[in-house]
């Protein structure tokens, strides 16, 4: 009996403690931990080599990381608003996954190519209502700073981001205006198809551009020369 008990307690500790560590974290601590992890992934010396395959691998790793921080289902729900109910459950899931990919495809490669070891300042966290909170941060650029506000939802014992406000522009509100207009006359299936097409094109362009060694931003080229 006691041996059994011991084993169970040990298993509990091993499996549940790492989760409890992230589950017990407040919204600001969660954001900070996750962003720090993303930054160390960006700075990882393994990826210093400007090899297109490596850059692609880093992209995928960052994407997986991002999926754990964001609540893409809530993001999709809010971005489509009252039209969300027109999606079948399968379409809802597909849409959430595609939306994640669309955002990741555009922004991850931009961050990969433009990251200059910028610092993030975590200012304060506040509660909006039960289970919802806001974390105010600032990204320090070389000669200006950009306020970034995250909105988080407490779900399954973890804080996940459902909206980001950069310089006062809410990501969700911005997509809402576009999806609202698109779905006014068209069906969710068409929107899903359109997004699928866009993502395929972006992925192809990205891989092609990396193969040709063309960075998005010529400044990145300059910095690479300096490193050499």
């Amino acid at each position, binding site marked *: *009996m006691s041996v*059994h008990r011991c084993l*169970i307690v040990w*298993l*509990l500790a091993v*499996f*549940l403690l*790492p*989760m409890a560590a992230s589950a017990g974290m407040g919204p600001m601590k969660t954001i900070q931990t996750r962003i720090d992890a993303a930054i160390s992934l960006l700075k990882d010396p393994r990826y210093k080599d400007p090899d297109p395959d490596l850059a692609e691998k880093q992209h995928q790793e960052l994407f997986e990381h991002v*999926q*754990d921080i964001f*609540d*893409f*289902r*809530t993001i999709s*729900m*809010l971005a489509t*608003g*009252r039209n969300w109910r027109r999606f079948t459950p399968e379409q809802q*899931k597909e849409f*959430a*996954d595609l939306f*994640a990919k669309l*955002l990741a*495809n*555009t*922004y991850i490669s*931009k961050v990969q190519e*433009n990251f200059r070891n910028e610092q993030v300042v975590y200012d304060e966290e506040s509660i909006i*209502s039960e*289970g*919802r909170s806001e974390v105010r941060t600032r990204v320090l650029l*070389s*000669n200006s700073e950009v306020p970034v506000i995250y909105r988080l*939802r407490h*779900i*399954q014992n*973890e804080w996940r981001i459902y909206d980001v406000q950069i*310089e*006062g*522009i*809410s990501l*969700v*509100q*911005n*997509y809402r*205006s*576009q*999806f609202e*207009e*698109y779905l006014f006359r068209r069906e969710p299936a068409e*929107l899903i198809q*359109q*997004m699928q097409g*866009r993502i395929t094109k*972006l992925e192809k362009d990205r891989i092609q551009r990396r193969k040709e060694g063309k960075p*998005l*931003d*010529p*400044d990145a080229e300059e910095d690479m020369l300096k490193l050499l």
Partner: protein
Amino acid sequence: MRLFRAYPVIFFIVFFALAVPASAESYWDEDDDAFFSEIEAEYASAPGADIADPLERLNRGIFIVNDRLYFWVLKPTATGWQKVTPSPVRTGIRNAFRNLAAPVRVVNQLLQGKGKAATAETGKFFVNTIWGIGGLIDASRQLPSLQVPSEDFGQTLGHWGIGNGFYLVLPVLGPTTARDGVGLVGDFFLQPTTYTSGDARAWAGIKATEAVNATSFRIGDYEAIKDASLDPYTAIKNGYIQMRMKAVSE
């Protein structure tokens, strides 16, 4: 017996261990309808979500012209400028233009009754002009008390309670609204660059330098917005309105 007692515990462990790498559906639960109703109402009623766009067809046309202008003229010029000009020089030029526009901000701060901000802005102007070699260096950055939100005449009109009116896309200048368009005219007369030279060509040259230099810091931003959006016209319209709403409220 013992096995049965342990069973729920094992089930518990397995369940949580599996739940950790959560995917979109596994963290979804029953409370969502309630959550959706609460938060959806909030987002639907967010101010500024909607702006009248009676000139949409014309606006979209000008939007396309501006888009072409960006890719064919502004971007190549700014890229070339970025290649031949070291970053500190470009930063210096940007700072100098910003410093020179101080009268616009000070007058608008005063018009909005923000005396403290106007004083700080004036102080910033003198610090940057004297210690920052005529504004080339943003020397005032070390003084947090001088950092106040920038104000323009569009914001002043907004502060006085005048709404956006309708959305407007101007050739070259880009997105604006009826109110902010009037604001642009007002600010034009407060810009020292308006009076620096007699003829229109010299003025256009100054403005072009300012625009090209400013763009050299932001190459790729517009492209990213376009790539990430379904309808860039709507995305930029909404972004502009949200940004201005925040600027007015500050």
